[in-house]
């Protein structure tokens, strides 16, 4: 296994075994925390239904209120939160590995801005009102803008560095964000409706919104995991990676395809949710080290945990109302990022 990438740090064999044990423990811990988050997400919410009623509702009995709260509200949004968190975590990890930049996040490719612009135009000019319709518009916007950015930024051109792609993505994102702001400022009704979408929310994200996106996010996760080994090689620099027989074009297309599907799918379900894609990979690298395969799996788990816990917090923060999950992730994410940044080793790529 010459391509094993922890070669980057080249630790001694005994250290590597210890590392592996730590990683295994860390991943097992992450699975346990994720299961705990899932339980919390079903049992805790803005309506203080007693746990016994929730349990009864889960088994098909219980009061009418509990039935609705569990099956109509909490289970669909738990699925949505899990999906969005996993997608954003993996998309963030892929972006940071691909650009070899610790500050990269999925939004840099302009995917989120494209989704937002399409939603704004749809609301302002085509009278779109339902979350399901927002989802399709956001998905279309994310995919079209991603394709445009990749074409202009030279995604398939080997001489082009990821930086060129990022600059194109950031520039396109800025133009589209300007367009969105222009549309919403001149159409206050649109501004009113966009406010909820822009904050990033899991409210009213029922199966009609989540199910169509599910296969796209699943495809994105598979593509991302397929790229993991090449990304390990890429960490040594493109020349060394090529010397090891890694196809740079294949890696690039896999990563970009995955990020587009994951970030686009997540935006389509919940709107832009900040900080998850940026923070989660840092958190995970601190626990599992530099191997991209472990980082991607860890980010998948930790992303789900972060979004689910942030959503649970948002449900009980401003009773009897709710705070959108995107606002909570920004509140929670920023301090976590600062804390991690202060441990230099933790954030090193």
């Amino acid at each position, binding site marked *: 296994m010459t391509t094993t990438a922890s070669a980057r740090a080249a630790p001694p064999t005994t250290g590597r075994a210890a590392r592996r044990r730590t990683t295994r423990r860390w991943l097992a811990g992450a699975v346990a925390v994720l299961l705990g988050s899932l339980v919390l997400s079903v049992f805790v919410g803005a309506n203080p239904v007693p746990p016994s009623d929730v349990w009864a509702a889960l088994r098909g009995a219980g009061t009418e209120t509990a039935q609705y709260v569990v099956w109509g509200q909490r289970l669909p949004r738990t699925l949505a939160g899990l999906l969005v968190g996993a997608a954003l975590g993996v998309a963030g990890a892929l972006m940071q590995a691909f650009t070899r930049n610790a500050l990269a996040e999925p939004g840099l490719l302009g995917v989120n801005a494209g989704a937002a612009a399409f939603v704004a135009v749809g609301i302002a000019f085509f009278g779109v*009102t339902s979350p399901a319709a927002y989802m399709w518009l956001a998905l279309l916007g994310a995919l079209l803008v991603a394709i445009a950015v990749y074409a202009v930024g030279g995604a398939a051109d080997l001489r082009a560095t990821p930086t060129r792609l990022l600059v194109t993505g950031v520039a396109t994102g800025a133009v589209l964000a300007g367009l969105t702001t222009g549309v919403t400022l001149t159409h206050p009704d649109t501004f009113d*409706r966009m406010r909820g979408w822009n904050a990033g*929310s899991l409210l009213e994200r029922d199966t009609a919104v989540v199910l169509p996106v599910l296969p796209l996010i699943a495809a994105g996760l598979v593509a991302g995991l397929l790229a993991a080994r090449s990304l390990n090689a890429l960490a040594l620099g493109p020349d060394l990676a090529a010397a090891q027989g890694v196809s740079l074009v294949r890696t690039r297309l896999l990563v970009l395809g995955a990020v587009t599907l994951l970030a686009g799918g997540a935006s389509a379900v919940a709107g832009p949710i900040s900080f998850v894609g940026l923070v989660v990979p840092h958190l995970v690298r601190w626990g599992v080290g530099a191997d991209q395969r472990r980082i991607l799996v860890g980010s998948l788990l930790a992303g789900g945990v972060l979004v689910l816990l942030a959503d649970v917090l948002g449900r009980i923060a401003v009773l009897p109302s*709710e705070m*959108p999950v995107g606002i909570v992730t920004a509140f929670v994410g920023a301090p976590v990022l600062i804390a991690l940044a202060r441990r230099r080793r933790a954030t090193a790529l």
Partner: protein
Amino acid sequence: MALVVAACGSADSDPASSVGDTRTVEHARGKTDVPAAPTRVVVLEPVQLDTAIALEITPVGAAVLNEATGVPKYLGDKAAGITTVGTVQEPNVQKIAALKPDLIIGTESRHSALYAQLTDVAPTVYMASQTDPWQDNVRFTATTLGGAGSADKLLTGYQQRCAEIAKKFGTAGKTAQLIRPRDGVLTLYGPTSFAGSTLECVGFTTPQRDWENSISVDISPERVLEAKADHVFVTTVDVNDRSTIPASVSANAAAFPRLHLVDQSFWITGVGTVGGQTVLDDLERILAASS
């Protein structure tokens, strides 16, 4: 100086008194002499526009909530030709000056910073706050435009109409709740809101809850059953589009047997007696159809 302070201190019932062809109005910024019969009025607040139209004093200019939509349609054809002078949040002083008004009415809580500029253009009076009870704001605006008698005429007409509807449909003892779906959460309007007070005016009771000293309270869709009432009104931009009913309400259809979609352009933003009468027309039609 002492005299002025003493005069301000008295909580007199009629803040305006006629002096020749001007009237002195006591308002949020002190006292101002305004024309007794103003002809070129600019209003900066929806309730002021509604009240001016109710008194058949069509303003030459009005700030609107939404420049794309312009003057609300419920105000009728006469109002449709009014020049817009920016938004309620950000009125455009240059556009106001270009209309050469003889009276400007604004709101201290929103337009405080513009007062000096506006008084250079024309006599300007400020209502205290748009969050005060709407009937007080109608009274202030009507008194400014046409004296105390005008205010009584408008508000009495509205209350009489309420009493007629209450009697016709036997609303006493029944409950009603207005819901505005917003960003996935549900905004419930209380008895002090414009539409909520109109529902109470026709004899309905708003279901009890803690209104947190506000006109409305947001609730999570998990708590949708707290919005149950004998009649539930849901605001929308298109009353014929049943898909605009929030998912949390339609998923609990059995709990909401009498559910009515109503137009938010006057149920929410139609603050004033013209808007109030439009809501009453709508209520009368809805209650006739559902009884």
